[in-house]
């Protein structure tokens, strides 16, 4: 029994001494923290996603107070509301925080793309890309192995029909998926821009088409139809100038493949036109000799 009491007592005494010392130290060496840091920290969402470029919300709050010139709008999860609240605490102009959202620039869904091999290794795009350029015939496209979904802390990106798809309601534009995608397919785009070229293939039209039904073939139909000079072909790929684009969706209507997508609900006339265009394309397909 004696062999038990001594060690327990001794460790307890050492522990209590240390605890006492720390309590004493926390009182004597107390440093008053700038209360604005606490206030700013309370306004921030506390997701610690690192989207602002600092090591977590605490760090961003401390830097905001310390550095006058630092922008209040770096927190994407908090959005405009947080930026305004921070600006109010610190007495600065908020500046406009354009709400952003992540967008996967590929529409090579399972039915549309060709695959050259069946990847049975680890479920990681980076891993697959390390061994082969891609299991898909198109070396630019989404492999659907979900590195972005793993990186997302907000459950905002998932694999649908074999490719990554962003759930716009959950996305806070922290940019974690942008860095996780080895194909560099994911971009942060303004929420208000509704029309996107969902293809990143810079292959020549015929090759791109052979690899994927939804690929951009660089046909320039969209550039002719655009009234705002907002879409151009570069490297065999249509690119939309976000500044000029009014999200009218005309290019999405005329696109012969599934490359240009509009989130906007098409107005009735445009919808009818699109239906007609699709019908025409289908008819053309049937005419083709086998």
């Amino acid at each position, binding site marked *: 029994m004696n062999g038990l009491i*001594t*060690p327990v007592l*001794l*460790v307890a005494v*050492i*522990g209590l001494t*240390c*605890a006492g*010392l*720390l309590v004493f*130290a*926390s009182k*004597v*060496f*107390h*440093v008053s923290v700038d209360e604005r840091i606490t206030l700013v920290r309370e306004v921030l969402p506390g997701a610690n996603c690192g989207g602002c470029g600092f*090591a977590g919300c605490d760090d961003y709050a401390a830097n905001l107070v310390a550095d006058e010139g630092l922008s209040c709008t770096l927190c994407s999860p908090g959005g405009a509301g947080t930026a305004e609240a921070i600006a109010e605490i610190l007495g600065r102009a908020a500046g406009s925080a354009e709400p952003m959202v992540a967008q996967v620039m590929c529409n090579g869904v399972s039915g549309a793309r060709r695959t050259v091999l069946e990847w049975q290794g680890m479920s990681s795009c980076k891993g697959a890309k*390390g*061994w082969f350029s891609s299991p898909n015939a198109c070396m630019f496209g989404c492999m659907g192995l979900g590195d972005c979904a793993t990186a997302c802390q907000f459950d905002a990106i998932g694999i649908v029909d074999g490719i990554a798809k962003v759930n716009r309601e959950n996305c806070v534009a922290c940019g974690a998926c942008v860095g996780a995608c080895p194909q560099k397919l994911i971009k942060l785009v303004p929420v208000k821009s509704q029309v996107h070229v969902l293809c990143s293939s810079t292959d020549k039209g015929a090759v791109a088409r052979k690899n994927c039904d939804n690929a951009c073939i660089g046909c320039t139909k969209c550039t002719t139809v655009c009234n705002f000079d907002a879409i151009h072909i570069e490297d065999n790929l249509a690119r939309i100038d976000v500044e000029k684009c009014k999200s009218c969706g005309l290019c999405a209507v005329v696109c012969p493949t599934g490359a240009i997508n509009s989130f906007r609900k098409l107005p009735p006339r445009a919808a009818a036109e699109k239906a007609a265009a699709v019908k025409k394309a289908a008819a053309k397909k049937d005419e083709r000799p086998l």
Partner: protein
Amino acid sequence: MVNLIVIFMAIVLVNNFVLSQFLGICSFLGVSNKMSSSVGMGGAVVFVMVIAELVTWPVMQILNRFDIAYLQTVVFILVIAALVQFVEMFMKRYLPALQKALGIFLPLITTNCAILGATINAISYGYSYLQSVVYAFGAGVGYMVAMVLFAGIREEKLSNMDGIPAPFQGVGIILVAASIMALSFMGFAGMFQ
């Protein structure tokens, strides 16, 4: 005096904590990607090792007196953790510049195996108080030397992974580089008897 120099040089070069005893590997690989942060981390390790040794050696005498030396691991961790916390509070109040320089590394290395290893090794070698403090200081300096050298290699040669075969890219080639460096330190073996 000669004895102390031998202890110091032996632990810095021959029995280097990182490269031949494999202590503190996680921080060695984790923080060595930038020269500035590796210097900060090395400085923090030297500092914590010395003050940990200053405190744990007397504690060990108490444990020996009560014949419960087997409790040294538990008690040492307890004492070192509390001590580092205390030192951090002290520095925040009186030496904010130093606290900023050591930064997040100070609390991080509280429970690092290299710190505990230095204190326990010094005791198991039967060193006197002065000898064990010199030993701990040398262990910290050895860690810093390995860390700074490796950070230099990484910044110079491994910051760009382009020329490296795909399967080796990332952690793989870093481990290879670290092992080559450890091999080169084996050249010091037998320098001190």
